């Protein structure tokens, strides 16, 4: 993200504008850029508390943080170079709140549920699904997306102090599959999976699909994920790999195609259990890849002992 920052000779912020960004348009809509930039206009740079400025604007997306950090970087650089005023920016603490705590609890309950009897497991599963839908879905709109995975694959690791939730989600997803062979994230933590589960409970149908269609859908999904990730990495634009309709449901923002996709998935969820999860979600491809790694590593360890 490239941000142009203007400062008046008197030291007030004249304005700031995002000159270039590599976010998808839908994600960029979620950034509170105009509000944030407007709030800085006319204020003298030596009166701005930059730590709280960044904390105030940081929301669920990495872009909010990137925008605030870019503006702060621009203002402090101009202040130092043109006005010889050096603004100290204190270290930021780890962000840990209800959201992060909820993620840990969801994974912990998901893990514990494995060792309980079926009826209790079902109760816990419904409970985790309600919490996931409300907190990770509607409150924070932060499910794992292909964009986040691609961002990490591109070699960019966002500041863990302000992205504890991101690392908890991806860490929990990866570790539970690698060490337990179970995908706790998809079963207990993913809010979109929860939404489909609730819709399916309303529809009350659980139609099974023939094997040929399951194979075809899985192979097509893997191909789409591979092409999307490769194209996004080639263009150094990880955010563009995402095609999930999550934001349409949880933030009520999306393109026309995403709205149509969401509508179809929710309607089909009435008849088929979690159709998105089983046949189209890129996390399913990641799950399969991790399970493959687990299987091969286990085989390797066994053959060496």
């Amino acid at each position, binding site marked *: 993200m490239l941000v142009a920052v203007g400062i008046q000779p008197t030291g007030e912020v004249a304005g700031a504008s995002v000159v270039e960004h590599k976010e998808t348009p839908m994600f960029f809509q979620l950034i509170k850029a105009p509000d944030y930039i407007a709030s800085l206009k006319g204020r003298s740079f030596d009166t701005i508390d930059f730590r709280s400025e960044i904390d105030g604007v940081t929301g669920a997306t990495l872009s909010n943080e990137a925008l605030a950090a870019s503006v702060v970087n621009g203002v402090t650089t101009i202040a130092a170079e043109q006005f010889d005023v050096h603004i100290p920016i204190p270290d930021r603490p780890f962000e840990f709140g209800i959201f992060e705590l909820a993620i840990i609890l969801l994974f912990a309950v998901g893990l514990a549920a494995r060792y309980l009897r079926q009826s209790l497991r079902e109760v816990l599963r419904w409970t985790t699904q309600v919490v996931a839908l409300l907190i990770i879905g509607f409150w924070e709109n932060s499910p794992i997306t292909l964009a986040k995975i691609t961002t990490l694959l591109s070699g960019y690791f966002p500041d863990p102090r302000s992205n504890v939730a991101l690392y908890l989600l991806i860490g929990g997803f990866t570790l539970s599959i690698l060490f337990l062979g179970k995908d706790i994230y998809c079963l207990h933590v993913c809010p979109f999976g929860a939404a489909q589960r609730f819709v399916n409970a309303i529809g009350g149908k659980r139609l099974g699909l023939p094997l040929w269609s399951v194979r075809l859908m899985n192979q*097509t999904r893997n191909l789409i994920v591979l092409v999307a990730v490769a194209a996004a990495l080639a263009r150094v634009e990880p955010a563009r*790999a995402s095609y999930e309709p999550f934001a349409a449901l949880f933030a009520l923002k999306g393109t026309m*195609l995403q709205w149509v*996709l969401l509508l179809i998935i929710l309607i089909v969820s009435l008849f088929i259990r979690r159709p998105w999860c089983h046949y189209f979600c890129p996390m399913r491809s990641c799950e399969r890849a991790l399970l493959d790694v687990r299987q091969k590593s286990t085989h390797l360890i066994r053959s060496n002992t």
Partner: protein
Amino acid sequence: MTQDTIRNISLWLFFLVVNGLIVGILIQSFLYAD
């Protein structure tokens, strides 16, 4: 038409429409870059 044929046609439609939408979203996303 048998029930199986209807089910297979519906599945193909579902498969084509959803994957078509996904590919459309990705094309839109990548083309929007320029």
